[in-house]
């Protein structure tokens, strides 16, 4: 039998991720999401195919997920990021019963049962506080790189209290603290504390069950991870590449769908395997 390949395309608000899998992961590409989702979906898919040395026709099934999932013209199916994160985490970290995903512009918590199925979820996408955007704005105000924040915060001897819950005001508050002479690490630690408190209170509505897995860009910030662990009172699990969980889950759900269809003998509709140059903006 010819081997089967599954692609997962996760278009998040900030980053676009693609993986190609058969039994293992053959390729993964991460790129920033621009304003033109479709162009980007084409480009990252092309890159992933090159990495895996596969022609597009060999991909058995493509599942798109994330905020931009409807803008993937070559996807066979769209599935929400809630289901995909759950599937990805239950594959990578089977002991996890709660997933906290800290994305660029939203934050969600998902509760899983013993079979890795979604039981319940909560989501915040109304407000930047509690999302990656909060740290992005603060990093900009402080003149540092987002990816340095975690490391820098670990040098803090204490942390300042950030009073503003509004992202824009918090950025101003941070600049004021800096001019007062508060050491940078303590300010960043304070920011992590604020965002962790926000996330912890949202997740609390689900009645958290161990183990807790952390995914999304926020999971790459060691300072934020530590702050959340302090709130939870126990360590969290981290996937090898927290940005890829959704895309991996999408590919695996595609595999599940193909398997189910084969078992029941139902034909699966598929989109054309062609990378079209499409633009979101009509002129």
């Amino acid at each position, binding site marked *: 039998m010819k081997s089967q390949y599954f692609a997962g395309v996760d278009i998040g608000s900030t980053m676009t991720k693609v993986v190609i899998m058969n039994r293992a992961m053959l390729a993964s590409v991460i790129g920033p999401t621009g304003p033109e989702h479709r162009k980007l979906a084409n480009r990252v898919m092309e890159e992933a195919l090159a990495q895996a040395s596969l022609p597009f026709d060999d991909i058995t099934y493509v599942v798109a997920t994330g905020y931009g999932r409807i803008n993937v013209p070559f996807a066979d199916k769209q599935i*929400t*990021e*809630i*289901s995909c994160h759950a599937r990805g985490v239950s594959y990578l970290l089977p002991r996890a019963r709660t997933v906290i995903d800290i994305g660029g512009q939203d934050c969600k918590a998902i509760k899983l049962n013993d079979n890795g*199925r*979604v039981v*319940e979820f909560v*989501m915040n996408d*109304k407000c930047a506080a509690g999302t990656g955007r909060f740290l992005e704005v603060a990093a900009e105000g402080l003149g540092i790189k987002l990816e340095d924040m975690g490391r820098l915060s670990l040098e803090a001897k204490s942390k300042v209290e950030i009073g503003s819950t509004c992202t824009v005001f918090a950025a101003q508050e941070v600049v004021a603290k800096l001019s007062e002479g508060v050491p940078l690490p303590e300010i960043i630690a304070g920011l992590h504390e604020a965002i962790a408190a926000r996330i912890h209170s949202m997740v609390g509505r689900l009645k958290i069950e161990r183990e807790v897995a952390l995914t999304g860009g926020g999971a790459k910030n060691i300072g934020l991870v530590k702050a959340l662990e302090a709130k939870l009172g126990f360590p969290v699990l981290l996937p090898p590449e927290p940005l890829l969980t959704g895309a991996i889950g999408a590919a695996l759900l595609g595999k599940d769908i193909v398997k189910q269809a084969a078992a029941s003998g139902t034909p699966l509709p598929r989109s054309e395997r062609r990378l079209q140059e499409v633009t979101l903006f009509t002129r």
Partner: protein
Amino acid sequence: MVEKGAGKGLAAAERYYQDYGCRAGELKRQGKRIMGYLCAFTPVEIIAAAGFMPLRIKGDVNEPITKADAEMETIVCPLVRSCFDVSLKGKYEFLDGIVIPHACDSITRTYDIWKYTLNFPYSHLINMPHATDKPSLDFYKAELNTFRRSLGRFAGREISDQSLTQAIRLHNQNRAKVRELYELRKMNPPLISGAEVTRLLVAAVSIPVTEATELINNVVEEVKQRGKVRAAKPARLMVVGGQVDNIDFIELIEDSGAWVVADDLCPGAREFFSDVADTPDPVDGIAERYLRKICCSRTFRERRGSYHEYLEQRFGHIGRSIRDFKVDGVVLYIYKYCDPYGFDVPAMKSYIESKGIPVLYLEDEYSMSTIGRLRTRIQAFLELLGSK
């Protein structure tokens, strides 16, 4: 008058829904007097018996709230603010008056704002208790009699028992017709979609009761012709919430691949599933229905027995609909700053989940721009139901 035949059912409902209040405006020009009201707790029988056509005031999710904020603080629920905003913009300027029941704080505590800002010839607040015990019922009955006398004076004639009994009969007939319509939702797939039901019921509270009964009857006859040709969708959902007077949210659910087959909403099952009993003093039957039979979070039912029994007392009607309409999942759709429903969310959620039915709790702001953002949650909920 609503005529029978093609185009007189769903198409007529669509017209009344799109141009909400058009029939009332038309009747007003013919000399009929029109009384606006808020909320399912306004006893429309008394208004109809006084010779007025009751018109339920509705908001508009597609109309941004621009004028109301100058008069009403934003802690008032967005539905009430929208109703007030469209009123300020002249949507209901043909009204002879407005009747407001003590339903929730957002409605009651803005009564003076409605009264003095809109300045209709007649305004009345019905002080309605929140508890259901005997003293509360007695108090409420006295309040209803006060309203009856006050409206009678404004109408220029006393409201007779006979006209009240007649109005009660017509409204009960109307409710029975809605229940007949709901029977068609029990089939799988349902003969009528959730969006069609909501559109029809919104239209129905904007026209005289006899016309509404006929309109609903026309729809019942029309959809019965459909037979079993409608697409099967994987999930049957129930929506529970306050006043949902726009179809957009229901449409979003049905576009995402589910049928909305049951509800506990206004207009919806909440106000059409209970009748006014035929009592020697008609006000007794009215008081009993509005205070004790309508199951809404604004009414507090005293706790008796175990927590489980208490939940059954308060939310048993939801459990019965889940069973009768074969519901797979429930969406709790609550407006931000809706105190009564907001307070009840944890209890309602635990009650429904105890029946083995998953719950999706959504908070919304009664605006098209926020409704669209709920799409991912609804799709994820349907995926969750599909993988069970």
